[in-house]
């Protein structure tokens, strides 16, 4: 019986893998198509004004393969991409794959810090808000959540820069110090961007966690714990929190895409040399191969992360495996 359940669970994983691959192929095809449909010839953006001769334009078209049919271009690009060759940036002649890899640590650090800030803040807010004895603080946390959800992260970023960088000189307004260069410099350069990205995330997580905590607190096993005379803190942290936090696992995974999108703006505002800033610059300068490379990377990463989250969820919650076996 257990073996049959495991086999069925394995089939479920396999099906999700196939779905994942199909998703990647579809999104990449759509992205390539959309970029191709953008009106205008990229040569006009790439070449300086004084070199916009028909011969030079034709040369750029040839370099980018724009003189080939669409499917031939896309097939060639896909073939190279499978080998890790995403082409060469027209702007600075660097391999696109190298550019992405070199920028990745900055974006990863930003996203991890934003997630941490989001989760820590969400935990604090949710725990306060479900504690009904403190109506003032509960109201404050609700207000914080509403404001954070309403405030776009780039507006918050500008406010943080104005107050903490320009007026108070506590943190730098822009720039990034690598960890290898200085720990304090790195922390200092990442505090404001992480806050800008993480605060909105905290609001979403807090909403979900508060709702789940409120439901869990009504469960029989929690009521039993309260009836036993356990302190409220122990009930919340030891009994109610874990089952309530499971939806956060899924949400955190889904939120990776939102954080990545947010990083595009935040990295531009704070001049962080991450993938977001790379993509924005590439879009402005019509460096198509870089844009395609970034989209491919982001898509594959997002799909893989969500696949991992699905797996993790089934590990954390045995009911998922049981239900998969039963179906």
């Amino acid at each position, binding site marked *: 019986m257990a073996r049959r359940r495991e086999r069925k669970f394995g089939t479920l994983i396999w099906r999700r893998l196939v779905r994942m691959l199909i998703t990647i192929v579809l999104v990449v095809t759509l992205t390539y198509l959309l970029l191709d449909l953008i009106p*205008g010839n990229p040569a006009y953006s790439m070449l300086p004004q004084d070199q916009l001769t028909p011969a030079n334009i034709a040369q750029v078209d040839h370099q980018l393969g724009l003189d080939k049919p669409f499917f031939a271009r896309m097939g060639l690009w896909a073939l190279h991409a499978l080998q890790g060759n995403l082409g060469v940036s027209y702007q600075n002649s660097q391999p696109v794959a190298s550019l992405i890899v070199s920028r990745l640590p900055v974006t990863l650090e930003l996203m991890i810090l934003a997630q941490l800030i989001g989760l820590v803040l969400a935990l604090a807010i949710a725990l306060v808000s479900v504690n009904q004895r403190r109506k003032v603080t509960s109201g404050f946390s609700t207000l914080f959540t509403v404001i954070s959800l309403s405030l776009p992260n780039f507006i918050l970023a500008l406010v943080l820069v104005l107050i903490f960088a*320009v007026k108070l*000189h506590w943190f730098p307004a822009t720039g990034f110090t690598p960890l290898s260069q200085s720990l304090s410099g790195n922390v200092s350069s990442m505090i404001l961007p992480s806050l800008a990205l993480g605060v909105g995330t905290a609001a979403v997580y807090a909403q979900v966690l508060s709702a789940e905590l409120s439901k869990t607190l009504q469960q029989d096993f929690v009521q039993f714990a309260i009836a036993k005379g356990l302190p409220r803190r122990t009930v919340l942290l030891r009994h109610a929190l874990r089952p309530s936090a499971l939806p956060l696992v899924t949400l955190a995974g889904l939120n990776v895409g939102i954080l990545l999108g947010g990083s595009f703006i935040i990295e531009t*505002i704070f001049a962080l040399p991450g993938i977001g800033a790379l993509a924005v610059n590439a879009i402005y300068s019509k460096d198509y191969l870089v844009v395609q490379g970034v989209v491919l990377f982001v898509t594959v990463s997002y799909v893989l992360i969500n696949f991992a989250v699905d797996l993790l969820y089934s590990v954390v919650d045995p009911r998922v495996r049981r239900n998969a076996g039963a179906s």
Partner: protein
Amino acid sequence: MRASARPARARLLLVPVLAGALAVMAACSSQAGSSASSTKPVRGGQLVVAIDAQPTGFDPATADDPSPGAASVSNEIFSTLTVPTASGTYAPYLAESVQGNSDDSVWTITLRPGMEFADGTPINAAAIEYNLARIKATGADYTQVKTFQVTSPLTLVVTLNAPWSAFPASLSGQPGWIASPTALKSEGKTFAIKPVGSGPYELSSWSQGNQIVLVPNPHFWRKGLPYLSKVTYKIITDSSARLSALEAGNVDVAEVDPAQAAAEGINTSSQYKTYDMANGTDLVYFNTGVAPLNNILARRAVAEATNRPALIKSIWRGVGALANSPMSSANPFYTPVNFPGYNLQQAKQLVQQYQQATGKPFALTLSSSNDPTQELEAQALQSMWQAAGIKVTLAAPQEAGTYSETVIGKKYEAAIFGFPSILDPDQWYTLIWTPQGVLNVANYKNAIIGNAIVKAAQETTVQGRRAQYAIVNNEIAQQVYSLFIHSSVNEIAARSNVQGLNSLTLPDGTKAPFGQEFQVFPVETMWLG
């Protein structure tokens, strides 16, 4: 069961957060601008400059710097053979002299003895020939050169296919970046990220998209320079972010938007100094190959319906001067031009004359890119022209690259555009204002203009060239081939302790003009007071 009274969880969490913040604040250093300045250069110090884009690479043959800021970095790594002067001539810089023969068809470049590149390779005539021939081989420049000939270790003779008085001008820009032939040969394509030049600084590190660090070149041919021990260029693409970085003390010098800087009070604050740089001319091209602007009555009507001073005040907050020609009035080749001024009554009459002459209503389409300033400008122009009785339709704003294609492809009637900042008009006038020029987007045929541009290239004196360009500019104004609006300005803002930003002195002691050709700002004579 009673819940215990304990401090709120949130309060407890704040303690480590605040402690961490305090520790970070203690670790942070912010540069406070010192109002005390020294007139005598001070050695040492580390300058941080915010630029809007990074160079695409440092190979003189392939680099395509997207902005003045990017070009500024390159100009610290490479010395150019000549530099512009305020009078319109080009003074020798890396070269000891650059002399033309009687008709400027042969040029002799002479070098100083004992100069070396950053890797110790001698800077001699053979090195110069290698560099210039390499540029010629790409087809991007020096196509007018017939031969390069090394006649002595320090002398290179350049023979041209035809007289070209602007040859020294070409040696002051990217084609004149002189790089070490040893490094060019050994590095190959990687030279673009590992340059070895002849300038005051050499590349120490380049964190792509983040910052570029330069340190002094110990072999720099100007003894005693540079003063600074390190220059860091921070790449900050957003103009507001650059301004914030300057105000926060994270950078010492920044390229800023003049209107934004004015709004923040940078120009009037004692903490900062600002320097304006010519940034080209904003204009409206008229497509004289299609109706209605193929008719001079129509072109004059549009020009006289435009209140350009009011436009400059509302769109650019009064920053930048009125333009009457492709050249700014600060250009050494400029002479005053009589361009039609604002006269609404006259414009209305011209509109009626046009309609009577052609039997058609006066209607045109105005195109712009999706740049917010251009969109605003388009709306303002529509309003002004409609007041004169012209029916104006605004075309859907296009993205920059697509818009360039539209304008250069002459698929427009009237189009808002920009003309780059120029010091020597030769290259751009040949491309844009010569009737057969590749970028003659105004689509006109005018032998007076064409002949004058050709003659200007052959004149051997500044006065002679100025006279020819005066013919060109006056004819363009007379025929109203375009509506010139505004000489735009870019701005460099520096903290008050930054000295020597505007004082690149030449070896003969004269001062080079600031921010003209390619709008670069030299760091080699800067110091921190």
